[in-house]
């Protein structure tokens, strides 16, 4: 048996092993705990590297590195993990972000410190995230999807800001509520479509379902995923969770956790229920563009740097969902790209917001200013990320945004073209508003001269862990922007298959 067979399981469970090791390590020896966490995440990433090297890029629509063993026989649920072109970019993102988060945390764990518990949670999170992107069985997917919830809950609830309790419980209950409906839909699929939880099998068998049943089941899935994305009007947990979460928590939340929702749409909801997806698409697209505009307005009203970035996620995920709602290969490709791009860019913005907060002990925009004077490198990186976030061509954000807009011009056959063209124009207007809130934020934070209260403060420019954690992300933002084929080449094959599944159900 070669490593191909073990690779995915290693990628999923190595962090869990690391978590156990850290948990068992003596509490006083922090350096060793941090080293174990770093080694584990790097080793996991190395497995990711192995996967990348051995992935067959000519057949990205095929499930690769598959393992399919019996697990819970009584409900016919199997341990089925595999990856295709849609999972790969997200799995890599998850692995990369976790490593960088461990590095970033190295010297400054948020209050009340306790690196041991913090690292354990981070490693459990990684298992959950990696598992979700690999699972090909609904129950397995659900377990990983839910596994993510608890560590993040504690991260916010223990290491968060002043209002952390409220934010943590809101995050928890909101997501749990969606999950409840999602598992109901999973069960309905099981009982109505062939007593299996296997996603591939279900995609083949679901066409036998009555249209009404499909619609209902899709509705349950929609709630589960839409809350996670989050889509308007289920987004209100997000600004609170982000604002209160510790920096690393926000980064993981924005970079990876939100993608679990959008990924769910592409991996589960659409391929299994393409017919229902068509009926739901206009509504999803509508909520997506409302989210784009609404999120942007929300941003413009903010006075807190971190909360502003949090609201911008609502807008950006709106573009991702718009792409998905067109049910075309262009749109879904854009969505996959948009997920990775948003992960890198917004992740970076949260890192920056955290570092700014650490230096100035405030995130109030009205008190900040002149960052370029006091910490020029950090200031320019902020400017760079703002530009990337507003979708400047040549940087990663563009390739999530523009193809999504483009695809709305001609959605999948059977969808209302006029409606989606209206969405296209509204989404384009959203790009102007994005420029508005991002540059306005940049102007308030970085331009000008420092306010009197900080005029004499000694502000340290980038620390080493910040450099190490950020440079890979910045380079990736440029690389993906210049050579979008890096992702499109991987995602396209698998996305075509999803789009074809939609086409197959006829107009």
């Amino acid at each position, binding site marked *: 048996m070669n490593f191909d067979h073990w690779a995915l399981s290693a990628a999923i469970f190595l962090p869990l092993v690391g978590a156990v090791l850290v948990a068992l390590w003596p509490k006083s020896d922090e350096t060793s705990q941090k080293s174990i966490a770093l080694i584990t995440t790097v080793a996991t990433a190395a497995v990711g590297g192995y996967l990348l090297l051995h992935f067959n890029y000519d057949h990205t629509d095929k499930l690769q590195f598959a393992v399919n063993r019996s697990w*819970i026989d009584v409900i016919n649920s199997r341990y089925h993990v595999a990856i295709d072109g849609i999972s790969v970019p997200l799995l890599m993102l998850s692995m990369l972000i976790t490593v960088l988060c461990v590095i970033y945390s190295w010297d400054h764990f948020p209050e009340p410190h306790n690196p041991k518990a913090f690292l354990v949670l981070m490693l459990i999170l990684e298992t959950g995230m990696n598992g979700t992107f690999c699972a090909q069985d609904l129950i397995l997917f659900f377990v990983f999807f839910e596994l993510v919830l608890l560590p993040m809950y504690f991260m916010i609830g223990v290491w968060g800001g002043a209002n952390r309790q409220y934010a943590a*419980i809101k995050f928890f209950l909101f997501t749990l509520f969606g999950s409840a409906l999602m598992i109901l839909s999973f069960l309905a699929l099981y009982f109505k479509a062939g007593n299996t939880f296997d996603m591939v099998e279900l995609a083949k068998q679901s066409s036998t379902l009555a249209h009404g049943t499909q619609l209902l089941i899709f509705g349950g899935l929609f709630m589960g995923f839409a809350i996670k994305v989050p889509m308007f009007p289920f987004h209100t947990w997000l600004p609170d969770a982000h604002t209160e979460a510790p920096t690393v928590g926000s980064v993981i939340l924005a970079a990876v956790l939100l993608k679990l929702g959008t990924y769910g749409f592409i991996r589960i909801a659409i391929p299994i229920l393409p017919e229902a997806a068509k009926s739901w698409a206009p509504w999803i697209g509508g909520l997506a563009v409302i989210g784009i505009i609404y999120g942007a*307005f929300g941003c413009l009203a903010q006075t807190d740097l971190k909360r502003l970035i949090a609201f911008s996620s609502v807008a950006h995920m709106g573009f991702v969902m718009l792409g998905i709602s067109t049910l075309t290969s262009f749109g879904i490709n854009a969505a996959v790209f948009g997920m990775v791009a948003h992960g890198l860019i917004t992740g970076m913005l949260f890192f920056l917001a955290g570092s700014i907060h650490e230096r100035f002990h405030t995130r109030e925009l009205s008190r900040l200013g002149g960052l370029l004077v006091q910490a020029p490198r950090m200031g320019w990186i902020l400017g760079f990320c703002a*530009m990337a976030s507003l979708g400047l061509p040549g940087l990663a954000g563009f*390739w999530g945004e523009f193809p999504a807009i483009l695809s709305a011009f001609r959605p999948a056959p059977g969808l209302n073209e006029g409606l989606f063209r209206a969405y296209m124009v509204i989404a384009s207007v959203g790009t*102007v508003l994005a420029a508005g809130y991002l540059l306005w934020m940049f102007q308030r934070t970085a331009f*000008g001269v420092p306010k009197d209260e900080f005029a004499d403060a000694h502000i340290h420019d980038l620390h080493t862990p910040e450099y190490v954690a950020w440079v890979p992300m910045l380079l990736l933002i440029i690389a993906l922007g210049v050579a979008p084929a890096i992702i499109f080449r991987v995602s396209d094959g698998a*996305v075509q298959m999803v789009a074809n599944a939609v086409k197959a159900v006829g107009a």
Partner: protein
Amino acid sequence: MFFLRNAWLIFLLPVLSFFVILLVGKRLPRKGSEVGVAALGASWILSLGAAIQWIGRPVIGHGEEAARHAFDRNLFTWFQMGSVKVDFGIHIDGLAVAMLVVVTTISTLVHIFSLAYMEDDRRYTHYYAGLSLFTSGMLILVTAGTTLQMLLGWEIMGLCSFMLIGHWWEEKENSDAALKAFFTTRTGDVGLLVGISILFFGAGQTFDATKINEAALKGEMSHWVLLMAAIALFCAVVGKSAQFPLHTWLPDAMAGPTPVSALIHAATMVVAGVFLVARMYPVFFKAFSITHSPINPIAVIGGITIIIAAALAFVQSDIKKVLAYSTVSQLGYMIMGLGVGAWTGSVFHIFTHAFYKACLFLGAGSIAHSGSHHSFDMKKDMGGLKDDMPVTFATFVIASVALAGIPPLAGFWSKDEILLGAGKNGYGFFMVVGLVGAFMTACYMTRCIYLTFFGEHRGNAAHHHPHESPVLITGPLVFLSVLSVGAGLLNAPGVELFKKWTMSPLLIEAHIPEHAFSIPTAAISVAFGLAGILVGYLWYWRNLGPHGVTERAKPLHAGYTFLENKYYLDRLYTDGVVGSIKGPIARAVYWTNQNVIDGLVNGVAWLSQRIAGFVYGVIDQKIVDGMVNGAGWSAEEGGSILRVLQTGRVQQYAAILFGAAVLFGASLVLFTR
């Protein structure tokens, strides 16, 4: 073929220069400027080489039908989705070559000029990095073969204009101007995104500009699709090329360093919009039935812009603002020219205008550098500088005359072609607009020269000793003034080389009319220009005319105030549009978010807590448990449990609940094997 094949080097060199300057610039002996100058110099030589090889390319057809086929080269596949393959490559034709030469020439001179002008700047290195990237943006745009690549160049320029206009970002005024430029052009860019999308599908899933143009000419796209696409694209043009009503960012952009103004307003950025129309001309030509219908939005917007901007140039006391409004007005000519079917005239106007406008801007820089002690206020800090700065004076006057359209200087030939096109293609009214504009142009430039170079020294010019600028500054001025004199002859009657070089098969296919030089038209246009100069001369030098009338006559005073306030457009945008979006609208949305949507969420949570409290405290503890335990429980204890629930420890219960669920799941796994 070396230069044509490798024309991609022309834009790659400035990109590389940007990264090199940014990474190691500060450690170099000349702080990175040497990298910028060297890269641009090399690009300039490559562009000239490309131009020579382009001219040497075999001509297909003969007489009026003679044209050269564009040189296309795909460098690599940018990305592929399904059957749609998008290449990254270069598309070199006469238009691209002309633009390459203009852009690299002006940019090289600006780079050299800045060596002296920006010498002691606090961010000299950043400045050069910005200049390089800016230039590369324009070069990417003009060599692009696909609309997507055009968008790339287009937005890179947006970014760099933001960086360079806000170069001195310590002052809020400057960063405001930078934001304004970015927002305004970005507002227009909505049209670009939409327009590119429409054309992509309209022409059968392609970004290829040539294919799109051909599809438009062959009628493969319905007129409705073409019209929508053209209107959308034109919105972007209005933003980028500072046409009415989105011209307001351009005068504010003067907040940037002067050489940047020269670069933005002469050769890059603002002519990007004009270039876009010229590049996608078959689309616009067909969509708006140019030359076949009496009126179209391109001509109207261009015409309005000519007049309203020229009028504003009269009330400025800042020399750079005069030149800024003059640029807006001249861009109006280019746009109007395209609107009336004078393609060659408009493109030629980009070409000639670049030289004399760059000369004027750099001249203004030279004055501020050595004559008026960093002030641009003509009324307060200049006057009588002609003897102190003879070279600057001479070049400034030459460029002004070229701008005013006096033969045989450059501006005359290109403007004349636009007016001729308007007259011959059935757009008589727009020809009149152009003539009135010519009169106004000549007149405000005369005013500008008088205030700057004649009369007494005032303010800074009196207190600091004005002197001529160093050769690094005057050199580019002289070079540009020579081009301002000579560039127009390239397309003079009998020569018409520019037309031959830029003609493309697509334009021939589209039957875009070309007209022979007409002496009456030229005579009228010269007469208007001379009249403008004469009126200016009489008013300022001879002090003739109703001076002070705007103070005395009420309606005139109102008109003056209207102009001074820039037609109140800024107020409308800043306070009206932006203010309301940023203020009341954003706040209202956020209020809804916090109170309605989130209120609902919190309401549900509150209700659930209440119900849970009731179920646990009353039903479970009192009724169910009460039945079991009898009446052993006191009311206080039930109450205290209720309090625990209400004081926010619910989440711990939720956590425990979840933990239990996980255990349940685990046991399910273990026991079902």
